[in-house]
């Protein structure tokens, strides 16, 4: 199964990368862009046939390594 873990900075944590992307988009003429938040998507190919177990494993990996829960949150989805 393929599992996708999406990691984002927590609300309230300053995201200078998102800010820089927002500035660049404004420079390109996308004047209606408000706040921009940048995160990270990690796709994992798991040797696991059960979607619930695959997702639980993704959650465990998110907690232990893929996200730093001091500053980030993450969501896990089975994508195939």
């Amino acid at each position, binding site marked *: 199964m393929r599992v996708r873990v999406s990691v984002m900075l927590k609300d309230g*944590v*300053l995201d*200078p*990368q998102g800010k*820089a992307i927002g500035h660049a988009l404004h420079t390109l003429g996308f004047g209606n862009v408000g706040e921009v938040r940048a995160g990270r998507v990690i796709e994992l190919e798991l040797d696991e046939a059960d979607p619930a177990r695959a997702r639980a494993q993704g959650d465990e990996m998110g907690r*232990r*390594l*893929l996200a*730093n829960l*001091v*500053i980030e949150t993450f969501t896990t989805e089975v994508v195939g």
Partner: protein
Amino acid sequence: MRRNRRRSGQQAVRSGIVVFPGTNRERDMAIALKAASGRAPAMLWHRETELPPLDLVVLPGGFSHGDYLRSGAMAAHAPIMGAVRAFAGRGGYVLGVCNGFQILTEAQMLPGALLRNAAMRFLSRDCVLRVERGDTAFTRGWKPGDVFRAPMAHGDGNYVADADTLDRLEGEGRVAFRYHGDNPNGSARAIAGVLSPSLRVCGLMPHAEDLVDPLMGGIDGRPLFDGLVGALVH
């Protein structure tokens, strides 16, 4: 007497420096430790699972594992880190500088996290640090309120923690160093270095080890190492 013993090397402080793939400040750290203690530190590869008998473990600066995922994230789970954690649990002294500080936060041996510098730039220049307390092994070479120069070289030095954690750190006297004057990377409450509850684990962002000899342009960083050696000498 102590000086003589130190000169003979028999009672010198035993330190070890952990080397990860991508570590690049281990030799600077070794020079500083050897100058202060008279004994060359042991270099410890990250795949080791046990430590030799040591008084001090240092996690030096660099870009362990290429800073992939997050700075220090992979190194925090290296095989040797179990032994470093156990060493700290037994009351051993651990110093993490720059990437070493990032590794200690990722390993949850110190609170908070180090995010991208607020202005997004990698900072390679000197800063001024203020010593917040003078009664720990890491700060006893100074007096509270002393300021000193330290070179910075980091992209992810912006210290963050939630307000409760910051209040607790301040309340428990666990802020060791703060940026003095300007706050170069946007760190919460200008924090540059923090201590564990035992005061035996310290993380510091700037490189005190890079100002320990007049040939380097100054000796502002020496009190860190002289103080540590004085505290740990047998």
